[in-house]
């Protein structure tokens, strides 16, 4: 029992340290720059308590649950040595994690609104909704494909910089042919599609694969899945904006 309390106390201290910069910044600008008192200080303190406790539990669950899970799955697939099974898993994980992502739902709705205002599609709710839904599916497919490409890279040991820079070149070329309204949304989408639970899982999977496959290095080959998952939506939203 004391062991559990000790671990929990350590996690809470760590979470407080992680959150200290935000509190300092907000307090400084509120008191020194804006020179205003805090609104609803009581509510804010309760909220802060939740944030600290939540972060502590999350980090603990991460190290005891998500990381071992990602590694165990990577090992199980390596033992099974079926590339088709591994790649279909990679695709489903990328697609499943993205299609219901709240940030993506928000950004797809915004994109539909902007495109409708610019007159590229009819400004009717049903048309906008269809546009947003298609966009979400396109992005989820693109993330699934990106994770597959990323896993193939780990298996083959391809150099990542060649692939990422080719991706940048594609984005650059597509930008020249895109409507200005869609560019901002497309660029932003890269950052928001990878969620808090997907990131640790993908990272553990990549590092786990690179560790259990002979001849692969966890640092050189294990990281990079997130990078692919971020680049693909940018490319596909630009393409989608051109075609639809």
């Amino acid at each position, binding site marked *: 029992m004391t062991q559990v309390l000790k671990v929990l106390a350590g996690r809470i201290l760590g979470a407080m340290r992680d959150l200290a*910069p*935000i509190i*300092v*910044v*907000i307090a400084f600008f509120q008191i020194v720059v804006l020179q205003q008192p805090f609104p609803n200080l009581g509510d*804010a303190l*309760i*909220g*802060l308590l*939740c944030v600290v*406790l*939540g*972060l502590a*539990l999350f980090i603990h*669950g*991460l190290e*005891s*649950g998500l*990381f*071992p*899970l990602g590694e*165990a*799955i990577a090992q199980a697939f390596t033992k099974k040595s079926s590339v088709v*099974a591994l790649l279909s*898993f990679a695709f*489903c*994980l990328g697609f*499943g994690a993205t299609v219901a992502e*709240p*940030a993506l739902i928000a950004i797809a709705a915004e994109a539909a609104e*902007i495109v409708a205002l610019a007159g590229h599609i009819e400004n009717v709710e049903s048309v906008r909704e269809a546009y947003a839904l298609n966009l979400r599916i396109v992005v989820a497919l693109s993330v699934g494909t990106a994770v597959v490409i990323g896993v193939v890279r780990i298996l083959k040991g391809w*150099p*990542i*910089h060649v692939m*990422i*820079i080719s991706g*940048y070149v594609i984005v*650059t070329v597509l*930008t020249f042919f895109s409507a200005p309204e869609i*560019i*901002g949304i497309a*660029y*932003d989408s*890269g*950052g*928001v599609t990878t969620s*808090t*639970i*997907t*990131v*640790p899982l993908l990272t*553990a999977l990549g590092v786990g694969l690179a560790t259990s496959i002979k*001849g*692969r*290095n966890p*640092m050189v*080959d294990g990281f990079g*899945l*997130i990078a692919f998952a*971020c680049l693909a939506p940018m490319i596909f939203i630009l393409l989608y904006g051109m075609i639809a």
Partner: protein
Amino acid sequence: MEFLFELAKSFGSTLRDVVPIVLVLVVFQLLVLRQKLPRLKQIITGFALVVIGLSLFLVGLNDALFPIGETMAAQLTASNVATTEEQVRWMDYMVVYAFAAAIGFATTIAEPPLIAVALKAQSASGGAISAWGLRLAVATGVAIGVSLGCFRIVTGTPLQWYIMASYVIVMIQTVFASRTIMPLAYDSGGVTTSTVTVPVVAALGLGLASNVPGRSPLIDGFGLIAFASVFPIMTVLSYSLIISKLGKGKTPPAKGDH
């Protein structure tokens, strides 16, 4: 009572977010892998803690942080505006740039996915890359990026110029970077912008674009996330260059190098 209701709502939305992932995991485990996973009980407990922790975290952010952050962003962007003047002077917005850098840095330090990747990087590199060093490097990148992004909104210059110039810098840095840091650096672009950073930074961008004369929130309000995703790649590549130049960074385990 209202608080409990909010907590339940947040728990529900986190759960909905997790369901597709759990579904994929369970289906593959039952139909394809069909092997006993080691430490299964611990993994399930850990997964439950992640969901509970994340729900609490989000409720707290919604209660405490986001209202204050959004009000501040609105007040700061509105306070020193030359409302009717046609000429927008970018110098007038110094406080906004400073706030953007400070809040970008602070929210990134607390970003859960970044903590996860940093912990993994520290263990995978055998300690050659420190988790805190990486997080500070990424946070510095976000600070520079968001601040420059605000400058872009104020001046109204096209987003793609900045992003493409950043790509060129990343490409040049890639030539000189060590192969062990590259994948991690590219990854750090995507993990920075998540639960904590996106809402605050998006509010800042939209507030700025609606308050600066001649800017439209629809066209100019976007792009801050893109800045916050590219600049950490540069700062992480620079960080690795600095630690290797200082000679402090022990060479990461090079087993299986090719």
